[in-house]
């Protein structure tokens, strides 16, 4: 089991006008799954992703990632946890603008104190896997949106994470880039058994997912495996 949540609740503004983003969510995600979390805006997708990723804390409930209860970790322990266990792909790519594609991918490994040899080997391997071996020394501003998101995927995988969380990864991409990105992620999922969890509105992503969890008003409305 990679991720397990028990009765996860999240309430914003508990002291004034409470907003219940999640109400008792129970999920179990196995290693190697390719899961999409879908639902209308405000249904709690991003909140759930943030809590699973250790970026936010639940108001109530239990969350276990890779066998450890992350709800008890301090802020600094959570930073270490995220660095070593989770890869993030954001809607707006969020690459470091002053670093090249190579340096962006390498950066997470530097934070992990990996040796130069390991860093170089993995960076080249990942950028080749996402089809950017020719753009390796370009800064994000010199790359298209699709290329930037592929660098972001490479960066997310650089730390050899337990799983990758992708928040609306195709929202800013055109059709061709979306298909290309999904092919890459599906391939990495198949070959390296990397667990992917997406939050998305994009039907193209939903169609490729092998499991679709639908959230409505902070509760799981359906959980379909294909």
């Amino acid at each position: 089991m990679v991720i397990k949540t028990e009765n996860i609740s999240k309430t914003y503004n508990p002291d004034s006008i409470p907003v219940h983003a999640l109400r008792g969510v129970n999920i179990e995600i196995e290693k190697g799954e390719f899961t999409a979390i879908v639902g209308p805006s405000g249904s709690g997708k991003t909140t759930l992703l943030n809590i699973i990723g250790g970026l936010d804390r639940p108001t109530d409930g239990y969350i276990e990632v890779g066998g450890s209860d992350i709800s008890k970790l301090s802020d600094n322990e959570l930073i270490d946890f995220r660095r070593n266990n989770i890869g993030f792909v954001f809607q707006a790519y969020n690459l470091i603008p002053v670093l090249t594609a190579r340096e962006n991918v390498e950066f997470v490994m530097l934070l992990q104190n990996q040796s130069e040899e390991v860093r170089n080997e993995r960076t080249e391997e990942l950028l080749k896997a996402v089809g950017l071996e020719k753009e390796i020394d370009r800064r994000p501003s010199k790359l298209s949106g699709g290329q930037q998101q592929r660098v972001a995927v490479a960066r997310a995988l650089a730390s050899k994470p337990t799983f990758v969380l992708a928040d609306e990864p195709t929202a800013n991409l055109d059709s061709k880039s979306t298909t290309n990105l999904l092919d890459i992620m599906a391939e990495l999922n198949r070959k390296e058994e990397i667990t992917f969890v997406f939050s998305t509105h994009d039907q193209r992503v939903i169609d490729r997912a092998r499991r679709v969890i639908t959230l409505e008003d902070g509760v799981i409305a359906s959980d379909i495996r294909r």
Partner: protein
Amino acid sequence: MITLFKLARRNIWRNKRRTYITAASIFFAVLLASFMQSIQRGAWDKMVDGIVTSFAGYAQVHQVGYNEEETIEKAFPFNANLQNLPQEIDGLEGFVPRLTSFALASYELQTKGVLVVGTDPESEHGMTRLRNNLVEGAYFEEGENSVLIVEGVAKTLKVNIGDTLVLISSGYHGVNAAGKYNVKGILKFASPLLNRRMVFLPLSVAQNFYGAEGLITRLSIDIKEKDKLPQVVQAVQKNLGDEFEVLEWEKLMPELSEAREVDTAGNFLVLIILYVIIGFGIFGTILMMAKEREYEFGVLLAIGMKRWKLGMVIWMEVVMLGLFGAFLGILGSVPLVGYFKRHPLDFSEMEGMADAYEKFGFEPVFPASFEFQIFFTHAVIVFILTSILAIYPLLKIRKMQPVQAMRG
């Protein structure tokens, strides 16, 4: 650490215009501060050096208590022990024995209170180059019954070369002192303070005038290296014992030393105001930078960058920006200060201003002092200032939650 440095260095150039504006503000602050301080220090050094080397000497030997109460009753014999000091003390270049006291100078119907300086003409010229101050007449010789007077005395008494000046005073142990002396030369000193009321007699003539044969009231000391003054003073004091006081120029002329301190404090206050203004400018840049990049900071924390590492990048950015501006400021200051060292600001032609300065005892010429310590100090100030200002984003990062930061 190299990666963090590289990241910080590149971040500085993300917003080139802002970097240039901030660096320019620091550049002008450092330029102005260095220039102000160099001119202030240079002007004071010139004045102190002028007064010290043209009359007082860097240190003086008196009988104990003379500095508190300058009376001829505290005159002491100029004996062999004193005369042998240059041979015994390392770093002591020479000395001038003087017998000084006050007298009333008179010519025809005019009178004026003057400071009579009985001195050995040769050693006086050796140390203070007194002969070079002559603007009229000739230099005096030991034993001759003649007097050199400063311009201020000559003007007040309307005395010319060859006239006879009458001096009246109370001498050693209260004897009546009176004498007539031929005006042999008129002197002009750079310092207006010295130019007002001094008259010089040959030492033996002054001793005779005051009834103080073989006695002097002070021994002005010349040294080889200014930096070694405290050591020389200590050695002379040790050699002469408790009967004598050996005082550095700051103690001999506390009003000069205090005036310098007050002026330096005023200058310091202006520098503080300048740096406060610049500090707010830099802080504005930091605020904008922190606000603009809040989202990015959130992302970096999200992907696992430790807070202290992120803080270190921001700290390096701010400090590098500050030092970049300071470096440019120093680069600009060096030729500017160098130029004004060679070509001092000279207000002597500007009548009103020249008079005002002279009234307060200043020569209206301001050379810059070229000292690397001044430039270095301002680089250190900018470093400290930026290091302090960089605490703000560090505090923000310390409390930052990635989700909130990424929400904006």
